């Protein structure tokens, strides 16, 4: 049963928590250990805004094990406003609606169900923006 491998990524998965470099201000996602030669604390936790644009997208119709109940589903590379690119599913989005450069926002959804004796894995997906009341 996979527990710890999902548990230790919960901050990144649930709320898109990456890292910011205390010296340069660079933001990165996913979080990573300091590289050789870097100070232990040079990268601090940093929650990204979740806003970005679709760099490219595709549809999975021949799914890997564990995703058999999901096809067809949209996957995308999303360029986040802070700079990093992430791979994720697009949700609440019709297949014909997806487009390069489409603005998207992060939502936390079910990524995988590991079955009745396993975890439900939650994490980030992206969807077309639902406008705030201001608009």
């Amino acid at each position, binding site marked *: 049963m996979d527990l710890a491998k999902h548990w230790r990524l919960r901050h990144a998965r649930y709320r898109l928590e990456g890292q910011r470099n205390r010296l340069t201000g660079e933001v990165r996602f996913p979080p990573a250990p300091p590289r050789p030669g870097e100070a232990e604390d040079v990268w601090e936790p940093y929650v990204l805004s979740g806003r970005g644009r679709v760099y490219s997208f595709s549809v999975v119709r021949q799914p*890997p094990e564990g995703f058999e109940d999901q096809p067809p589903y949209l996957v995308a*590379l999303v360029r986040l406003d802070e700079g990093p690119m992430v791979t994720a599913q697009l949700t609440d989005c019709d297949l014909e609606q997806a487009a390069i450069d489409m603005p998207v926002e992060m939502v936390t959804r079910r990524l*995988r169900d590991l079955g009745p004796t396993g975890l439900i894995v939650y*994490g980030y997906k992206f969807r077309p923006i639902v406008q705030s009341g201001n608009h």
Partner: protein
Amino acid sequence: MRHVYIIGTGATAVGEHWDRSAESLAIEALNSALGTIPVSRLGALYVASALSGTLHAQSQIGALIATAAGIPGVEAVTIEAGGASGGVALRQACMAVASGAVDLAAVVGVEKVTDVLDARREAALALATDADWEAIHGVTLTALWALLMRRYMHEYGYTADDFAPFPINAHANAVANPRAMYRFAITADKVRSAPMVSEPLGLLDCSTAADGAAAVIIASEGLARELCANPVRIAGSAVATDTLALHSRSNPLWLTAAAQTTAAALRSAHLTHSDVQVFDVTDPHGIAAALALESSGFAERGTAVALAREGAITPKGRLPLATGGGCKARGDTVGANGVYQIVELVAQLRGQAGAAQVEGARVALAQCMGGIGATVATHILTLD
């Protein structure tokens, strides 16, 4: 460093070998490559396999194949680098022989994918992506190539139809390859009307994972002269890596490790890009071949698809590709692909490639990649 030669090649047919085990396929390929050379003369055995550990729940494939070959005791090791496994294994053999540590080595690439059902195979293939940040989202390698294809179309103004020359060329060449899985020609209409696998990739621009094994025998110069009438020299050999996850790259349409290894392999062979006459690259889809050609410096950015449309990738063109059918029509043996490439390119340099023969080929380039170029191995083969 000593010069290194290929003195024997062998391979099984690629396909669905329901009644064969991985050992059985590997031994057929190894025996075929050895010919009259006694197996006991092998100083080392490098076994390339991307999926064995996952699909067969078997580690130490090196020891398994050595045992099956009747040479337990030999130095044997399994090499796993996804789709680059075959090329990386070849590089290990080259270094062992070039250094003088070993005089005669075998590289065996073997993949047995039909023992499991489709979804499990897709999951195993997807392990070549980043498990925590790509595969967990249900992304497959095919989907990642499709993302790149769509972006490439967007940046350079192509349509999906423009990629059809790649699978059409692969299928046309496979007709002459008795070991190929799909020995029939296809048309642009067929490619266009095929069902979607991962938009914009249709079924006929997607390789089929299949069973197969290929082997090459690597020798020092002295042994090569003794044991072989027509050795082929490995004049350049390089391996490099890129970020495991595609999204970590500053330009996803640029395969840095392909660029690095091609430059390094050509440099050590004292050759230039224009010297290469025949190619085999990891080409499960047209976009993969296009990005490999561009990143390796054989086509300007955004032009490989146009070159393919103009016929450059056929055996009579400037950049002959997939002369044995490539991943698409030979069949995609994943970790063994890099060894199949060598078997086919050696046939090209020996003038034994039949209808797909590139006239007068004396310099060949083999390039295989794991995942989306996270590991790339590039080799230059020459006739002395």
